[in-house]
């Protein structure tokens, strides 16, 4: 029997949807990506959670009609999530292009009529998520001003076509009061193995919470921290300007990067051979294992990423490691294998995929 062709062709995306992975941005050995998100709602409609099907569809149609006058999204791809199979929705989520809620993968929020995403080059527009509109920009490395500029341009262009809900005192109005005001969530996805290994991470995380930042796992709210990847973002959105929120993130993340670099120096100085052995074992497991769970793969990838950062392993690019981070997830593996996989089949497929990538783009062995 021929397996059904996947309905979603991601090669249609303007930049394949993965330019943010290419490790071309500043500090990309430690910071994988920078994301800026603005929450907006359209006047005249109930918020998504309370809206009826017809209202959500009319809102989507209104936005779609306005996009002709929004250069930031010219040539963007419209994906109607409700029309996709679960595995395709999961694939978009694994690529960080749509949230779990919009993709209907969160058991508390089944897929809604009108759930859609417009995907442009490095920018995207999520429609009918918790808020009507979530404008976002995703960039490689530690690129706060660049990411903000993209999302700000999209905001200005769209806001001059579609009336956003705005209050003189409370700013941009959102379904959850935690997003009101600027609606801006500025975040970085950062890899902090040095701070975890030196057990400094607790102090750093509680310090950044005191500064008004919060941390989450690889996939944002509600996700676990795996593989020492943390998402750091501003905790509050009201009472500070967009510039102040960006400055705060830049200041704190710069400090965290310095602490991570210092921790790595300490590791090499005080426990050089133990660390070297640990990291080579991580590489060996990825290179030869026949079955890998997602958490295992993430943890060993974290080790190899650190080894590349410490120049213990050479010839393996950060881009390759970033790709593994995304492409070794279950929906991607199902697409690769062109069939539905059970959990154990996924683990086998993951080990096979990781081996192949490491062999073809592999690091030097001393």
């Amino acid at each position, binding site marked *: 029997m021929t397996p059904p062709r996947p309905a979603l062709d991601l090669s249609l995306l303007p930049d394949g949807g993965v330019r943010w992975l290419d490790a071309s941005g500043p500090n990309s050995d430690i910071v994988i990506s920078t994301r800026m998100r603005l929450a907006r709602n359209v006047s005249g409609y109930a918020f998504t959670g*309370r809206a009826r099907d017809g209202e959500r569809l009319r809102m989507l149609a209104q936005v779609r009609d306005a996009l002709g006058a929004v250069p930031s999204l010219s040539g963007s791809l419209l994906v109607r999530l409700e029309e996709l199979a679960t595995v395709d929705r999961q694939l978009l989520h694994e690529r960080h292009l749509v949230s779990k809620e919009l993709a209907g993968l969160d058991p508390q929020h089944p897929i809604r009529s009108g759930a859609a995403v417009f995907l442009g080059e490095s920018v995207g527009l999520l429609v009918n998520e918790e808020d009507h509109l979530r404008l976002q920009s995703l960039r490689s490395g530690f690129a706060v001003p660049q990411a903000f500029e993209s999302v700000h341009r999209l905001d200005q262009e769209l806001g001059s076509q579609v009336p956003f809900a705005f209050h003189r005192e409370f700013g941009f109005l959102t*379904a959850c009061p935690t997003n009101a005001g600027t609606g801006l969530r500025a975040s970085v996805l950062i890899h902090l193995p040095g701070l975890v290994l030196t057990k400094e991470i607790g102090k750093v995380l509680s310090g950044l919470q005191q500064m008004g930042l919060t941390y989450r796992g690889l996939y944002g709210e509600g996700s676990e921290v795996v593989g020492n990847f943390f998402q750091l973002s501003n905790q509050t959105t*009201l009472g500070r300007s967009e510039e102040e929120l960006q400055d705060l993130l830049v200041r704190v993340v710069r400090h965290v990067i310095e602490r991570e670099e210092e921790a790595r120096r300490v590791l090499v100085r005080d426990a050089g051979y133990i660390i070297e052995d640990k990291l080579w074992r991580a590489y060996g497991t990825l290179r030869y294992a026949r079955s890998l769970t997602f958490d295992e793969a993430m943890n060993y990838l974290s080790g190899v990423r650190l080894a590349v950062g410490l120049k213990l392993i050479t010839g393996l690019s950060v881009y390759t490691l970033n790709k593994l981070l995304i492409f070794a997830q279950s929906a991607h593996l199902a697409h690769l294998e062109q069939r539905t996989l059970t959990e154990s089949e996924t683990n086998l497929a993951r080990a096979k995929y990781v081996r192949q990538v490491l062999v073809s783009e592999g690091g030097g062995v001393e």
Partner: protein
Amino acid sequence: MICDNCKERDAVVNLTRIVDNAVTQLHLCEKCAAEKGVETTVAVAQHPLGDILQAVQQQASTTSEDAAACSFCGATARDFRATGRLGCPHCYDAMEKSLRELLRRLHGSSRHVGQRYDAPVTHVATPKPDSIHDLRDRLQRAVDTEQFELAAELRDRIKVIE
């Protein structure tokens, strides 16, 4: 009906199970249901605002805002406490007082100091105010949430347009 499991007590829980497309019905008493891990009490809503909402709940329950429904979407302060989500932009005015306090606790401020915004005044993309579709949706929502006064008003406005 007697419990399918213990065959002693009255069944109070009807459990529908779907295994490999086969539907089976199980009637259980409260005790047997609990033993099988079936929750029989209504779960308390979990949302990220947690304690803060509870604090505001105590404060809000003494104000008149608690009972008043938003005239646009029909949401009440009670709906907000149950879901952690407001119903529409107009809710910010309908619940202004308690929201100001909540925003202050959440953000340390209740005043937006960022970018100002003026919505486009006249444009093809601006929604027609109170279109028949919108009014019908609002009427249906008002009926669903038993906001009968609002429903009657919306019904009259629809009649005028029709």
